[in-house]
């Protein structure tokens, strides 16, 4: 029984981490129909920057804030400087650019921060939580992770559903030309979309790093799982990304705990293929067929 609960809890925490990363992918997909392969190294760079600050004596929370703000700036700059020139052209151009960016950011991180493996602190306990004499496999940082992702998702839903800015962003994403005719500065909305995505990516970077070891490659394994989570959720919806992340996290946690950890990557791949063939729009797709 306890193993069951602990496996589920482990899956929950892990799933929230995938969810955070999937949220970042979804934000960019929504605004530019591009899967951003540079999401992981972007988050890695801001996380290593935070680590430098912490090692230099800054508090975890200051470094956390700096990581988010630098993520915002990095996302905006990348959209303006790198992605903007190919916007409106074939989407494959932008995808290839993000792959190039992946390599460039890795090289830059190695130069700036070194390739060594370092330990990233966590602001809360990284031991299990004791309830009624039994220790459960959920850490203080794990609970922080869950809360942070849920709050982020809620804020994004509020932004998109209930604010004028969110309405403009959705219009710009779905029908850029019509949006322009309605006075929306589409370019600005795309920049904002990338900036927001990059903030959420930076958040996922810190959540994955907290209490763990990091080097410039530490995010790379998350890419696959975050992508599967996003596809599971339909690539288009923040709530879908989080539910997709959770389902994936719990599924993989059970495979790892009861079947064998060597099968985790394979399971993720099987889930990905199953979703793409059976429900290409994701588990919750409701998008009406486009007609004009």
């Amino acid at each position, binding site marked *: 029984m306890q193993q069951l609960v602990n496996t589920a809890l482990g899956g929950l925490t892990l799933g929230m981490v995938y969810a955070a990363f999937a949220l970042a992918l979804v934000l960019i997909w929504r605004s530019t129909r591009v899967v951003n392969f540079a999401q992981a190294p972007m988050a890695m760079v801001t996380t290593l920057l935070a680590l430098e600050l912490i090692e230099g004596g800054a508090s975890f929370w200051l470094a956390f804030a700096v990581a988010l703000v630098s993520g915002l700036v990095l996302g905006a700059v990348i959209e303006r400087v790198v992605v903007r020139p190919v916007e409106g052209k074939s989407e494959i151009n932008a995808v290839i650019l993000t792959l190039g960016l992946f390599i460039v950011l890795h090289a830059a991180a190695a130069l700036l921060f070194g390739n060594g493996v370092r330990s990233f602190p966590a602001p809360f306990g990284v031991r299990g939580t004791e309830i009624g004499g039994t220790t459960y496999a959920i850490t203080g940082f794990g609970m922080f992770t869950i809360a942070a992702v849920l709050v982020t998702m809620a804020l994004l839903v509020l932004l998109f559903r209930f604010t004028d800015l969110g309405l403009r962003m*959705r219009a710009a994403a779905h029908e850029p030309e019509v*949006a322009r005719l*309605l*006075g*929306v500065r589409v370019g600005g909305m795309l920049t904002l979309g990338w900036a927001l995505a990059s903030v959420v990516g930076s958040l996922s970077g810190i959540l994955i790093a907290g209490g763990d070891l990091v080097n410039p490659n530490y995010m790379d394994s998350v890419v696959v799982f975050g992508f599967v989570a996003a596809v599971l959720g339909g690539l288009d919806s923040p709530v879908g990304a989080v539910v997709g992340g959770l389902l994936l996290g719990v599924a993989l946690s059970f495979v790892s705990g009861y079947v064998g950890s060597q099968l985790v990557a394979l399971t993720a791949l099987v889930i990905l293929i199953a979703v793409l063939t059976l429900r290409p729009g994701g588990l919750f797709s409701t998008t009406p067929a486009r007609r004009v």
Partner: protein
Amino acid sequence: MLTVSGLTAGYGPITALHDVTLGAEEGRITAVLGANGAGKTTLLRTVSGLHRARAGTVGLAGRDITRTAAERMPALGMSHVPEGRGVIVELTVEENLRLGGLARGRVRPDDLDRVYGLFGPLGERRAKPAGTLSGGERQMLVIGRALMARPTVLLLDEPSLGLAPRIVTQIFGLLRDLVREEGLTVLLVEQNARSALSVADRGVVLDLGRVVADDVADRLAGDEKLRHAYLGF
């Protein structure tokens, strides 16, 4: 109100508009007619800043807007309902309308009420995805959305396309009322010349990017040679 003079525009080697001069008078409906590929859509896109003019000028209420970006037009009082209507199907009916209001800065509740009053079916379906509307309702939605910005000049690109004649009559009637009651200036692009001339005050006929006729609507409709050559009725 809206003046176009010497406008030339095209796509690469194609010149779609040659030295086009026309005007839309305040409080009147001006129809722009012509066959497939005559350059009607290009004219509207160039006027509203979506497409760049090669030569010539566009003026709105005495102001030169030839080089003004499309996203600034609603704030200057001009709304463009594009060809194919441009309903954003992923948004609800009301979100589409609100977006129109945002074009003018903010959404005024009484503007929403006015649009729902003009177009009854929209009010009943305000929370539905716009993708669930019928063709006629979509046309009402995009006109209503444009009106949310309280324009002085309205550009319409083939509003009758794909609609049943009864619905076309209804929508053109509404347009007529709006112009009469609010002094709206309309530039109405149509292939359906007969319907357009029945509601318009003036008509301009384009052929292969050139103006071949410009006269009051009744006279164009009565000119048999012109009708046979360019208007198809």
